[in-house]
C-alpha cells in the first residue's frame, strides 16, 4: 500500500508552519518503503497533483475555528468538508472541490484521506516558530499519526 503523509503550511508564517514541523518529527522516526513524508505549501488543484497515485493520504494542517482552543487536534475526513462546494480562496479551490474534480476527470485518487487539523493562534506574523500551545501539540500530533500508520 502506498501511503502519503503530507504536511501543509508555510514555514515562515508562525503557526502556519505546524504541518511542516510534524513532518520533520515524523522523518526522524519513520521510514518505510511504501511511505512518503512530504511538506508542501500547495492547495486546491496543486494538492490534487500531489495526492494522485497514493492509496492512503494523511494530511496535517493548521486550522482556525470560531472559539477553538489552541493546540486542540481534530481528526477529520473529507465528508467534513463537503457541505457546500464554494470557492475557498480566489486562487484555488478547496479540497472537497478538488477531489470532486479529480473524480470527474478520472484521476486516480486515494481511497482514504484523513486530515489531522491543529487549532492554531497566529498565522499572520512572520516567524519560524509556533506559539507555545501549538508547539506543545506537535508531539501529540506525531503520535496520533504514528498510531494511524501502525494500523496499516
Amino acid at each position, binding site marked *: 500500500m502506498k501511503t502519503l503523509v503530507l504536511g*501543509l*503550511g*508555510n*514555514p*515562515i*508564517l508562525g503557526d*502556519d508552519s505546524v504541518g511542516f514541523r510534524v513532518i520533520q518529527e515524523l522523518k526522524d522516526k519513520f521510514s518505510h518503503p511504501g511511505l512518503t513524508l512530504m511538506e*508542501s*505549501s*500547495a*492547495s*486546491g*488543484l*496543486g494538492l*490534487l*497533483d500531489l495526492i494522485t497515485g497514493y492509496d492512503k493520504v494523511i494530511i496535517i*494542517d*493548521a*486550522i*482556525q475555528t470560531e472559539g477553538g482552543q489552541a493546540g486542540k487536534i481534530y481528526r477529520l475526513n473529507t465528508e467534513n*468538508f*463537503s*457541505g*457546500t*462546494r*464554494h*470557492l*475557498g*480562496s*480566489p*486562487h*484555488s*479551490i*478547496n*479540497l*472537497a*472541490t478538488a477531489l*470532486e*474534480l479529480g473524480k*470527474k*476527470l478520472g*484521476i486516480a485518487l486515494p481511497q482514504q484521506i484523513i486530515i489531522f487539523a491543529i487549532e492554531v493562534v497566529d*498565522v*499572520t*506574523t*512572520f*516567524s519560524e516558530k509556533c506559539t507555545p500551545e501549538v508547539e506543545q501539540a506537535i508531539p501529540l500530533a506525531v503520535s496520533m499519526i504514528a498510531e494511524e500508520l501502525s494500523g496499516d
Partner: protein
Amino acid sequence: MRKITIDPITRLEGHGKIEIFLNDAGEVENTYFQVPELRGFEKFSEGRPAEELPQITQRICGVCPEAHHLASTKALDDLFHVDPPTPAKKLRELLYSAFYVTDHTTHFYILGGPDFIMGPDAPVAERNILGVIAKVGLELGGAVIKTRMQNHHIIHMVGGRAVHPVFGLPGGVSKALNEEERKEVEQIARDSVEFGKLSLKVFDDIVLKNKEYVDMIVSDAYTHRTYYMGLVDENNKVNFYDGKVRVVDPEGKEFAKYAPREYLEHVAEHVEPWSYMKFPFLKNVGWKGFVDGKDSGVFRVAPLARLNAADGMATPLAQEAYEKMYSTLGGKPVHYTLAMHWARLIELLYAAERLLELSQDPEITSPDIRTIPTAVPDEGVGIVEAPRGTLTHHYVTDERGVIKKANLIVATLNNAAAVNMSVNKAARALIKPGIEITEGLLNRIEMAWRPYDLCLACATHNLPGHPLLPIEVYDSKRKLIKRFPEH
C-alpha cells in the same frame, strides 16, 4: 500597532472582508475593503544574508512564489552591482513564462471564468470549476489540469524544486538547461499555445457572444477611469520579467517611465485610519481620495493595466488578440474592470508564445549562466510584473550583504485603492432602497473585485463554504442586516 479610530464593528484581525454601510434611506453610505495584514516582515528579514531573500520571500505566498523569487533575485543583481549573462536572463524569463501560464489558467477557470460561464445569478454551489466543466465539457477540464501540470513540471525542472524554485542567484541562476530538457519545454510550450488559443475561443463563445455579459462588461457600474502601470520592454511591449515601469494617464498618454531604482520618486503610500493596509498612489499627481480621473493619483496594475500601459504585445498571436480586444471595446485605454478577464487570457497566450520563443532561442542551453559579483553590496531594487501587478523588492544591506532593511510593495497592494472604489461603485449601483439583497446581488458586488485576482496569502487554508472576502451589509444603526456567507 496603529489605533483604528473608526467604527467599532470594523474587525481587522484574521479575515479580509468587505463592509457595506447603508444610510437611513437604505442607500450605500460607504464601503470598506479590508485585508488581513501579514506582520513583522521587516523584523524577520533583518540580520539575514541578502542571498536568502529569494528563498524566504517566495514563502510569503503559496500562489505566486516565482514572482517574489524573481523580484528578489533582480534586487540582488542590483544590490551586488552585477549584470547576469543573457542566457541566465532568458532562463529566468522562461521559468517565469511557464509560471504565468499556470497562474492565469488557474485564475480564469477557477475564479474569473465561473461568473461568466455559469452566469452571475447561478447558485453559488455551481459557480466553480465543477459547474464550468459541466457546461464546457470534461475535455476542457482535462486540458486545464494538463496545462497546469506540464508547466509546473517546467518550473520544477528549470527551477530545481516544485513550487519554490532554488534558482535565482545574484548575477545569474543555479542551473543550466540541457538539450533533452529544452525539447520537453518546447513541446509543452506548443501545447500551451494551443491551450491559450482555445481559452480565448471559450471566452469569445461564452462571454462575447452573450449580449447580457457584454452589457455588464461595458456598464458604468464596473468602470473606472484611472492611471495604469506596467513593465514594458525597450519597444514598449508588455514584459513580465524586465524593463522599465511605464505609467499612462486615463486618456492613455504616457505619464511616466522609470527604472526600478527610481520607484520612490513616483509612488508613495497613503494611510487611512480604518485600515492597516496602505494605499499606493502616484506622487506626482497626489492623493485626492478614492476617486477616478486625471487629477487623482489612484492607479491600477495587473493584466488590463499592463495592456493599457504598453503599445502592444511582443508575440504575434497575442498581438492579434490585443488588437481585437481594443477594437471591440472602443479603443485604448479600456477602463472596464471586467475586461481584466479578457486581458488575462491575452497574457496567457503571450506567456505561452514567449515560452516557445525562449525554448527555441539558440542561447537557452548555454552553460554561461552566472557572473560572480565582486562589488560591495549596499542597496538594490528589483521589479517584476507579478500576475496580480507590479511587484517591488527593495533591500538595504551592510557591506557584508546582511539585510538592514527590506521593503516590499506587493502586487495586489497597488490595486488596493481601485478595489475599494470598484466595490463601492458596484454596491452603490446595485443596492437601492426597497431592493432585496439577494445572493445574486452580492455576487455581482464580488464580481467587482474578482477581476483583480487578489492575492491574500492568509486565505490558503480557508475552510470551504466561505468566500475569500465575506460581504457584510449594515443599516444606518450599524446593525448587521445581511451577510454572505450567512453564519
